[in-house]
């Protein structure tokens, strides 16, 4: 009898990667449709990179949310914290004796402080993350309006230089109507995003903390029994998320150049939506940091598409809502089919 085992085995794709794959396919499809319908804008590289540059803060927040969600938690304070960071930086930079370096430290400090506070209450006192971060959101919103109510444009020369800085990619670009070559310009914020995605992907895949986080999100009771320090893992996931909110806040003000009460408001919900579309499961244990930018960009592409079509902007929200709903149904049906054995993305011979 021929041994079956000599057959080359293909590995079953993990749930995390499967959902990531679905997210990527959907994004490519979405962008493809956009290119076909509106070739004039979407066929330009600049449009794609603008999505990245102008929404860098949102993508960073989504990364943070993804990390917390992989650990089985949720953080709804991140939008408000980001907003608070922008205003604090603006006030500090405009105070006369501020510096760009100082404002970066300030941004990171505020983010980490929120992360530590919330993480401690959630992990060590075992309070529901939803409630704690809701309280954190109110706190950050309150602080924001207390510090400064009106829009505050930062005029400090060093900062303005940073704000206006662009990175030109000379070998990538499009011809304009006059036949001149316009190279692609990206904002430094987009660079921060790329660096963070790489660091976090590596971190979650190769670090002990990263793997423990997946275990805790998958089944925290088992994780405890397997000898993982569940509380510390949860705590650090929130601290990391807070840190990313701080970074996002600085990137936000670096892009817009002003502190404003409405900065980053509602970002937490977009981040949750982006994470889920990017293949993170709200139940924890499944997700991928590469999925976060894909999820966020998918949402943004829809909005751009609707704007390009000239439809009432209310439809943006409706479309996002429908897409999110559709995507969750898709996720769950794929995972359900997989559990019941009706869906196979693998070629493993039966081992029994």
């Amino acid at each position, binding site marked *: 009898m021929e041994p079956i085992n000599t057959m080359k085995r293909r590995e079953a794709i*993990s749930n995390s990667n499967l959902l990531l794959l679905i997210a990527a396919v959907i994004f490519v499809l979405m962008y493809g449709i956009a290119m076909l319908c509106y070739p004039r804008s979407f066929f330009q590289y600049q449009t794609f990179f603008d999505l990245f540059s102008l929404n860098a803060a949102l993508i960073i927040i989504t990364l943070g949310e993804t990390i917390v969600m992989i650990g089985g938690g949720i953080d709804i304070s991140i939008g408000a914290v980001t907003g608070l960071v922008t205003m604090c930086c603006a006030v500090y930079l405009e105070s006369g004796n501020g510096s760009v370096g100082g404002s970066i430290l300030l941004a990171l400090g505020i983010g980490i402080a929120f992360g530590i506070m919330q993480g401690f209450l959630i992990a060590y006192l075992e309070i529901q993350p939803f409630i704690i971060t809701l309280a954190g959101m109110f706190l950050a919103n309150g602080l924001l309006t207390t510090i400064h109510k009106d829009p505050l444009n930062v005029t400090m020369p060093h900062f303005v230089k940073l704000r206006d800085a662009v990175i030109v990619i000379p070998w990538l670009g499009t011809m304009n109507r006059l036949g001149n070559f316009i190279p692609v310009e990206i904002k430094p914020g987009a660079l921060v995003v790329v660096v963070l995605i790489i660091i976090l992907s590596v971190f979650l895949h*190769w*670090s002990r903390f990263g793997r423990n986080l*997946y*275990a805790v999100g998958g*089944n925290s009771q088992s994780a405890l*029994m397997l000898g993982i*320090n569940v509380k510390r893992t949860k705590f650090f996931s929130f601290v990391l998320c807070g840190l990313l909110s701080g970074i996002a806040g600085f990137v936000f003000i670096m892009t817009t150049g002003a502190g404003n009460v409405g900065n980053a408001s509602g970002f937490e919900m977009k981040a949750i939506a982006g994470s889920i579309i990017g293949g993170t499961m709200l139940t924890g244990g*499944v997700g991928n940091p590469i999925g976060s930018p894909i999820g966020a960009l998918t949402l943004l592409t829809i909005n751009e598409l609707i704007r390009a079509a000239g439809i009432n902007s209310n439809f943006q929200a409706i479309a996002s809502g429908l897409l999110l709903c559709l995507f969750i149904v898709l996720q769950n049906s794929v995972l359900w089919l997989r559990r019941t054995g009706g869906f196979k993305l693998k070629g*493993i011979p039966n081992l029994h």
Partner: protein
Amino acid sequence: MQNVLEMSGICKSFPGVRALHNVSFSLRKGEVHALMGENGAGKSTLIKVITGVYEKDTGQILVEGKALHFRSPQEAQNFGIGAVYQEIMLCPNLTVAENLFIGRGQHALVNWKRMKEQAAHLLHSLDIPARPTQQLSSCSLAVQQMIAIARAIDMNCRILILDEPTSSLDEEEVQKLFRLMRELKARGVGIIFVTHFLDQVYEISDRITVLRNGEFIGEYEAASLPQFELVSKMMGKALDDVSQIKKEQPLSNQRGIPVYEAVGLSSTAGIKPFNFTIHKGEVNGFIGLLGSGRSEAARAIYAADKVISGEVKVNGKKVKIREPLHAMKLGIGYLPEDRKSDGIIADLSVRENIILALQVLKGFFKPFSRKQAELFAEEYIKSLNIKTASTSTPVKSLSGGNQQKVIIARWLLTHPEYLILDEPTRGIDVGTKVEIQKLVLKLAREGVSITFISSEIEEMLRTCSRLIVMKDREIAGELSGEDVTERDIMYVIAGGGTQP
């Protein structure tokens, strides 16, 4: 021989339940020590006290002669205590290799390549049909169990705890596990083995410790404790205080009309098709060890598990019972085994808990008036002698026995024709036990048919006029009449077949 683990005077209570009371346990180097006891005897609690999942209330734990207590499973693990728990404690979303090694490494970074190699080696050496990079959730339950065991074995532990490791393994896999256990034993590892398969206990164990109702019954050499005696130790002899109630009058053995009849009933919980009949005013009982199918049989009758096959007649009429509500409407009540999770609704008041079943029957859109509910509650608080401050007291603040009475009251209020009581007396004090037993007999005289399930053989003998002995998920024999003794029952359980 040196004791690697020595525990004495261990007590542990949870709100409303005394899980362990003054328990001692010792484990030698290089022995397999079986921890035996019925459901709720405290085996799992004792294990979780050792591994630091629970903190003991009082008592002393000596590990290799030093007084230690672990505050978390990782501390126990670092010290060399490996455990395989009854419920598989692994992460389904991770790969097999990760499940084998996560939580063990001290390095900040994961070396995937080395981990996969080590995992492949380990899986190969134990002959486990799984690949390191496979996601755990795609493995069968038996393979997952083997992986949990492989992990514990690979840790080079000094003490290995196996809590029901064989429940999902087939005979061949069990033998493989036993070979491993013997190898580890030879290396000087102390193994604590929990199982409800008696044959396996005698095959592998050196010593046996028996727990019952959270109390230490005794420690025995396996070779000098016949299987028959082990069963009787686990099930318990009469408590002196309880023996005061006798069958007050011989239960009417005359067979009236059958209230409930089933032919070939089976459910998804794994109970083999069985035939069962109960007559009006009869008290019968399912008796057997944990895992024998006694609860599953009751759940199949009430359709608490999905019924697969069987023909059911209630009061002579053919019916199909698909869900508990059908059973309720036909006058069948079921008091579940697990009071905490299936019975009481802890935060609701005594009153609300009592009227719950009747309210369900009446329909939620036709609520009882407060006054009516109050009347119902007061009636049963009085007749069952429930000790509660008021009808509005949350049920969770009552003692275990009184909680149980509240659930019984809930069913009595619906005036059932047939009541199934699954372990109604577990974990409650002796006085209340007697009251509940008396109540069962009183109800039977009033014409209610009752199926009584209990781990305590004495209790069953006192209350039931017919005993159905379960073994390996089917009916092994039926005993009735005045002359049934503990010996008869144990003979059927331990040996199989009725005594000539």
